[in-house]
């Protein structure tokens, strides 16, 4: 009974802000684009008769344009999450190894970028990477290049922006498991003659695996639907699913197709989430 009372607010929250919007989304996805306000015909007529169709889902799942968008998004999200993990692990380990009193300022430094607006941080990259930007200016002043490098609107710019934006999400869970680890285990391994590399590979790394999985997924899931960074920094051919969805909604005013894309993306992302829950549930 008490358990139920504790869970009630969480369940109500999920029902109201996750399940209900998902149902609305599904409803729009089964409708058909039409001139009007809002610009679609709902799947049920006013008298309750069914007039919807699964045509939008068929389009999303069979048209190579959308299939490519999904594939590209998954590739970009996978690469972003892997890069974040690679960079965040040494950071988190270093923070976890300093005396406890000095960890807070270091964690604060990791979180500090959040005090600036998300768009402002992406905008700052535009200023750094553009032809007349700081980076090209410095390289030219040093005489290393003659013509400016086309850095903006490239995959490089997109990944810089993605990794920069999502890195804190990888550092925090990693730091949480690494700070909790028992240093005595590493000392014991070293005392028994293991080299530092062996200690790391056989003791520290396996112990931190759940944190690493959490870090990977916390980056992977939002990165898969990211719209702003590919749009502002990426090349035009980087038509990721977030960008395609935005285009269907805002440029083509095809709400049902955009909703179908969103439903499929949601379904794709539930898979890794379930996997993560399995990992978490393991003792």
């Amino acid at each position, binding site marked *: 009974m008490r358990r139920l009372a504790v869970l009630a607010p969480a369940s109500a929250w999920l029902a109201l802000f996750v399940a209900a919007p998902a149902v609305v989304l599904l409803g729009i996805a089964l409708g058909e684009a039409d001139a009007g*306000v809002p610009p679609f015909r709902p799947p049920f007529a006013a008298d309750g008769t069914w007039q919807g169709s699964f045509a939008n889902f068929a389009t999303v799942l069979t048209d190579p344009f959308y299939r490519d968008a999904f594939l590209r998004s998954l590739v970009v999200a996978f690469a972003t999450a892997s890069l974040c993990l690679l960079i965040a692990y040494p950071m988190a380990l270093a923070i976890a190894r300093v005396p406890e009193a000095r960890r807070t300022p270091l964690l604060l430094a990791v979180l500090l970028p959040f005090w600036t607006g998300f*768009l402002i941080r992406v905008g700052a990259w535009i200023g750094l990477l553009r032809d007349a930007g700081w980076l090209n200016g410095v390289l030219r002043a040093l005489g290393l290049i003659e013509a400016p490098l086309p850095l903006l609107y490239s995959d490089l710019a997109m990944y810089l922006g993605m990794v920069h934006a999502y890195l804190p999400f990888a550092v925090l869970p990693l730091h*949480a498991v690494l700070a909790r680890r028992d240093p005595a285990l590493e000392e014991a391994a070293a005392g028994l003659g293991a080299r530092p590399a062996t200690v790391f590979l056989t003791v520290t790394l396996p112990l931190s695996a759940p944190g690493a999985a959490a870090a990977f997924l916390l980056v992977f899931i939002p990165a898969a639907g990211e719209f702003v960074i590919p749009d502002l920094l990426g*090349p*035009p051919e980087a038509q990721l699913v977030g960008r395609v969805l935005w285009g269907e909604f*805002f*440029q*083509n005013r095809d709400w049902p197709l955009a909703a179908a894309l969103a439903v499929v993306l949601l379904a794709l992302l539930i898979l890794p989430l379930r996997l993560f829950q399995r990992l978490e549930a393991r003792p």
Partner: protein
Amino acid sequence: MPRHPAAPPPSPPLREAGLPGRRRAALAVLLALCVCAAALASPPAARRAPAQPAPVLNVYNWSDYIDPEVLRRFTRETGIRVRYDVYDSLETLEAKLSAGRSGYDIIVPTSEPTFARLVRAGALRPLDPARIPNLANLDPGLMSKVARTDPGNRHGAIYLWGTTGLGMRVDQVRALAPDAPRDSLGLLLQPENARRLARCGIMVMDSATDVLPSVLHWLGRDPDSADPADLRAAEQALMAIRPYLRAIPGSGAIVDALATGEVCLALTYSGDAIQAAVRARAAGRGIEIAYAAPREGAQLAFDMLAIPADAPNPEAAMAFIDFVLRPEIIAAITNHTRYPNAVPASRPLLAPEVRDDPNVYPPESVLANSFVAGTPSPAAERLRARLWSRFKAGR
């Protein structure tokens, strides 16, 4: 050019953190503060709630499309506060309006296709000539061109107008493609020219509505064509130059990219290219931008002052339209934006360099060839939208 406030990325759940109690609480507070800061940073409009119940006018206009001093003067004269918001493509404007209850009192849709669709859908409030005496200042010749979509000109007054064409850095274009015509879309659409100019950067604005008609017209086809063969030809022409494009951004970003020398050629709105020229000159870094309307015929666009049917404050909106159509006010706007207006009495009040610039007020020879694009049917529009998506993806 922030087109829409981005949601701050979600904060990681603290459950996984498993930190000792006090520390976890401290982290939670910290994260909460971060999220608040991010929320404050993103949607500026949401924060500016009116302090006292002074009348407010909500204007939704194109980016870089007004003289800010005009808004201050309107508030000084009428006591009506102006809340000003911008878009950089017709698609964005229509997306906002199609959700209903947009809350705007003044919008500035282009005569075709957005204004035409809104008129047909009954989404606009008729203008009251008794409240807007300055409607009489408008050039009847230009207004009659819009009367085809809005019989009797009941729902809109021409604000500014312009052509779609090429903004360029003449020195670089001349150096890299000396033999290419600089007053034709062929400068962009002939792959040989685009290939050579790719080295100094090319952009095409991200709007199927305002690019496809020009491409079709250049190919000698009907700009409003819904014929799949015509659209295929347009797609082939666009795909042939696609590898040479640096980016396909909103028109607002193109002003910036031209002015800073990021690109040397861009297909965009006349006024945007001319604004880029003014900015580049002001920056004084030796970047000289020019605009050219295509000699084979430029797409002509009229941007209309209109009032949504569900505008919260239509009285203020009519007062605003009347104010804007005063010759000295619309002259200030043309001086600032470099787009021509439709109030002949404002011509003597313009700065000479604006009045005599053939790119601002196109000469008769350009106007004679120009065309106004129509409004495609929903089915044709879907074909065009898909074509445009493929063009952007480059596949």
